[in-house]
C-alpha cells in the first residue's frame, strides 16, 4: 500500500526524464502514448491508494512512506518522506485525473506544434512536481514541489518563446512568484527555528502542545500565506496570472486553473491546525480572499480576450477558496477547489476548442454565433458556465454555498457580502462570455471563418467527461439542509483538516442563505441576458455614461501601472544606474585599467630589448661585475 503510493509521483517523473533526454528520437505517437499513460498510471495508483485509505477507516491517521533521510545537518534534519491521507487523496485524484484528461486533450490541441516532445516533457514534469507538492510530508520537501511547479509554469507559459510577449509573461510569473516564495522560505526558517522541525505531524503537535507562542504562530502563518498569495494569484501578487494566458490553452487549464494555482489553498488546509490557532491569520486569509474574489470578478467583466476573462475568473474563484479557509471551513475550501478543478478546466478546454476552431482567434469581439458551428463544445461550455455561476444542482452551487454559509456562520458578514457580490458578478461575466461567443451575429474574420471546424474527438471526449464531473461532483458534498450527514466529502476529509469550527447554523438560516445564493446566481445570469441578448446597445451606453469607471476597471485598476511605477521601473532604473555607474566604470575600469597599465609598462621595458647581442652580453657582464664586487667587498 505505502509501496504503491511511492510510484504515484515517480511515474510521470520517469516519463518526463525520458522525454527530456530522448524526446527528439520519439515519434509523435510514442510521445503522446508515453506521456498520457504515465499520468494514467499515476491516476490508477492514486485511486488504489484512495480505496486503501477508505478501507483503513477514519481513525488510522496518515500513511507515511519514509524513502530516505534527505538533509541532515546538526539539529536540522529533513527526510524525503511521502504522506497519503484524505487531503492528499483528493489532491492527487484531482491532479492526475484532470491532468490525464488535459494530456489527452493536448494530443489534439498541440498536434501541429513543432516542439511536441518538449511540451509533453514539461507537462509530465509539472505533474511530478505537483504530486510531490501534495504528497510531501514536510514543509521543506513541499517547497521543492512548490518551486518545481513554479519552474514548469514558467517553462510552459513561455512555451512559445519566439513570441516576445510569451517569454515576458513567463518571466513576470517567475519574478512575481519569487516575491511570495521568499516570504515562504522565511516562514519555513521561522518554523525550523521555533519548532525545530517542518514535518506536518510535528508542526501540528507543536501548535497543539503550546510550544509556540501565538505571535510566532501568526507570523509563520502570515509569511506562508504570502507565499500562497504568490502561487495562488491573490492580492497583491495576482498580476502574473492574466499574463500567464500566453501559454497554450491546455496549460492554462491544468496549471493556471485546476492545480498549481490552488497549491496555496492546499498549503493553508494542510497547515489548518496552525492557521486555526491564529485568529489574525484567519482574518487576513478571509479578507484577502474576499477582496481578491470581488476585485478580480469586476476585472473579468470588461475583458475582451476570452482567456483573460477566465484568468480573472480563476483568481476570483481561488479568492472564494480562501474565504472558506479564512472562515475555518477548510473542507469547504478544498471542496470548492475540487469542483472548481472540474468546471474551470472544462471552461478552459472548451475555450481552447473555440480558439482551435477559429485558428487562434482570442478576441470575443471577433466571435459570436458559434453555437451551431461547435455542436459539442457549446453544450460543454454551457455546463461549465452554469456550474461556475452557481446555478442550483450543479457542482459549483454546492461548493460555493458551503463556503458562503460557513463564512456567514462564523459571523464574517462583510466577507460573506463580498462573496455574495462576487457570485452575482461571476454569473454575469461568464454568461457575457457565453453570449458574446456562442450567440448573436457572427463577427468572424475571413481567415478564421475559412477554417471553422469542430475539434476532433480526442479534444471533445475530455470535455464530455469533465462536463459530467462538473454536474455531478457536487453531490458528494451536500449541504446540511438536505439532510443530516450527507456531506460525504467533508466527512472523508475530516481526519486531515481541522473541522471543529464548522458549526452549523439553524436550519432556517441555512435555507435563507441558500436562496440568497441562488438569487445572486440567477440575478447575474439575468443581467447578462438583458445586456447582451435583449438590449445589446446598453453595454456601450453604460460605458459612455461612466467613462471614468470603465477606464479604471478596463485597465485593471492600473495595478500593473502602479507596480511598474513604484517597483519595476525604479528597479530597472536603479539597475541601469548601477550598470553604467559602477559596473562599466568601476569594475570594467579596474579590469581594463590593469590591462592598460601592463601594456604601457611593457612598452617602456621593451625598449631595453635592442635585439643586439652585444648589449645583452654587456648586461650579463655588468651583472657579473656587480655580483663579484658585492661578494668580494
Amino acid at each position, binding site marked *: 500500500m505505502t509501496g504503491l503510493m511511492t510510484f504515484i509521483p515517480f511515474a510521470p517523473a520517469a516519463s518526463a526524464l525520458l522525454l527530456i533526454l530522448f524526446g527528439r528520437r520519439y515519434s509523435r505517437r510514442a510521445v503522446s502514448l508515453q506521456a498520457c499513460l504515465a499520468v494514467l498510471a499515476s491516476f490508477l495508483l492514486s485511486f488504489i491508494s484512495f480505496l486503501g485509505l477508505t478501507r483503513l477507516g477514519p481513525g488510522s491517521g496518515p500513511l507515511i512512506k519514509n524513502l530516505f533521510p534527505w538533509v541532515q545537518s546538526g539539529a536540522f534534519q529533513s527526510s524525503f518522506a511521502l504522506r497519503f491521507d484524505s487531503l492528499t487523496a483528493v489532491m492527487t485524484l484531482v491532479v492526475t485525473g484532470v491532468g490525464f484528461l488535459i494530456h489527452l486533450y493536448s494530443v489534439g490541441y498541440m498536434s501541429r506544434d513543432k516542439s511536441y516532445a518538449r511540451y509533453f516533457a514539461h507537462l509530465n514534469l509539472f505533474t511530478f512536481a505537483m504530486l510531490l507538492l501534495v504528497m510531501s510530508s514536510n514543509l521543506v520537501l513541499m517547497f521543492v514541489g512548490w518551486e518545481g511547479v513554479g519552474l514548469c509554469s514558467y517553462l510552459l507559459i513561455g512555451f512559445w518563446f519566439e513570441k516576445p510577449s510569451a517569454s515576458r509573461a513567463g518571466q513576470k510569473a517567475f519574478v512575481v512568484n519569487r516575491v511570495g516564495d521568499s516570504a515562504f522560505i522565511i516562514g519555513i526558517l521561522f518554523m525550523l527555528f521555533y519548532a525545530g522541525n517542518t514535518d506536518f505531524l510535528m508542526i501540528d503537535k507543536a501548535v497543539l502542545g503550546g510550544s509556540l507562542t501565538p505571535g510566532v504562530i501568526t507570523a509563520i502563518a502570515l509569511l506562508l500565506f504570502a507565499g500562497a498569495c504568490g502561487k495562488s494569484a491573490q492580492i497583491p501578487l495576482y498580476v502574473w496570472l492574466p499574463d500567464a494566458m500566453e501559454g497554450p490553452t491546455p496549460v492554462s487549464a491544468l496549471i493556471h486553473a485546476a492545480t498549481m494555482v490552488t497549491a496555496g489553498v492546499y498549503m493553508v488546509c494542510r497547515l489548518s491546525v496552525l492557521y486555526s490557532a491564529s485568529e489574525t491569520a484567519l482574518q487576513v486569509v478571509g479578507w484577502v480572499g474576499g477582496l481578491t474574489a470581488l476585485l478580480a470578478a469586476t476585472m473579468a467583466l470588461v475583458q475582451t480576450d476570452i482567456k483573460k476573462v477566465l484568468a480573472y475568473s480563476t483568481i476570483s474563484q481561488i479568492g472564494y477558496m480562501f474565504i472558506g479557509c479564512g472562515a475555518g471551513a477548510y473542507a469547504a475550501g478544498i471542496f470548492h477547489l475540487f469542483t472548481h478543478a472540474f468546471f474551470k478546466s472544462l471552461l478552459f478546454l472548451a475555450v481552447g476548442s473555440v480558439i482551435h476552431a477559429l485558428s487562434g482567434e482570442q478576441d470575443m469581439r471577433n466571435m459570436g454565433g458559434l453555437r451551431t458551428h461547435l455542436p459539442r463544445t457549446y453544450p460543454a461550455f454551457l455546463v461549465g458556465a452554469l456550474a461556475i455561476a452557481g446555478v442550483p444542482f450543479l457542482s459549483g452551487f454546492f461548493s460555493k454555498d458551503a463556503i458562503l454559509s460557513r463564512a456567514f456562520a462564523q459571523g464574517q458578514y462583510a466577507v460573506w457580502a463580498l462573496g455574495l457580490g462576487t457570485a452575482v458578478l461571476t454569473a454575469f461575466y461568464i454568461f457575457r462570455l457565453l453570449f458574446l461567443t456562442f450567440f448573436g451575429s457572427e463577427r468572424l474574420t475571413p481567415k478564421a471563418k475559412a477554417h471553422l471546424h469542430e475539434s476532433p474527438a480526442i479534444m471533445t471526449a475530455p470535455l464530455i467527461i469533465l462536463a459530467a464531473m462538473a454536474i455531478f461532483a457536487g453531490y458528494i458534498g451536500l449541504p446540511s439542509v438536505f439532510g443530516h450527514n450527507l456531506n460525504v466529502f467533508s466527512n472523508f476529509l475530516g481526519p486531515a483538516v481541522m473541522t471543529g469550527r464548522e458549526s452549523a447554523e439553524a436550519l432556517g438560516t441555512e435555507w435563507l442563505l441558500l436562496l440568497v445564493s441562488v438569487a445572486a446566481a440567477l440575478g447575474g445570469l439575468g443581467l447578462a441576458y438583458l445586456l447582451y441578448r435583449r438590449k445589446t446597445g446598453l453595454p456601450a451606453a453604460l460605458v459612455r455614461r461612466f467613462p471614468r469607471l470603465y477606464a479604471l476597471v478596463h485597465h485593471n485598476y492600473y495595478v500593473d501601472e502602479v507596480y511598474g511605477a513604484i517597483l519595476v521601473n525604479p528597479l530597472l532604473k536603479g539597475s541601469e544606474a548601477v550598470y553604467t555607474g559602477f559596473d562599466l566604470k568601476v569594475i570594467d575600469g579596474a579590469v581594463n585599467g590593469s590591462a592598460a597599465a601592463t601594456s604601457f609598462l611593457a612598452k617602456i621595458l621593451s625598449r*631595453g*630589448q*635592442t*635585439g643586439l*647581442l652585444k648589449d645583452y*652580453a*654587456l648586461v650579463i657582464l655588468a651583472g657579473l661585475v656587480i655580483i663579484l664586487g658585492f661578494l668580494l667587498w
Partner: protein
Amino acid sequence: MLLVSLILFVLGIILFFVKRDLITMFMAVEVMLNAANLAFLTFARMHGDLGGQLIVFFVITVAAAEAAVGLAIILLVFRRTKSIKTDELRSMKG
C-alpha cells in the same frame, strides 16, 4: 697559473665584445670556458681536492654539447639570413 687563466678569460671577454661575427664570438666563449677550466685545475691542485678536476670534466662535456648545438644554430641562422653578423640580426628588437 691563475694569472694565465685570468689573461685567457679577459682575452675571451675582449674578443667577445670586439668581434661581430657569431663564429668568432663562439670561439671567445670557448676560450673563457677553458680559462675557467684552468682555474679549476689550479685550485684543485692547490687544495688537493679532486672536486675541481671533476668539474672540469663536466665543463668539457657540456662545452662539447654546446658546441654541437651552437654550431648547428649558427648554420641555420646563416641559411636563413645569409649573414652571421650580430648587428644585422636584430629581429628580436622589442
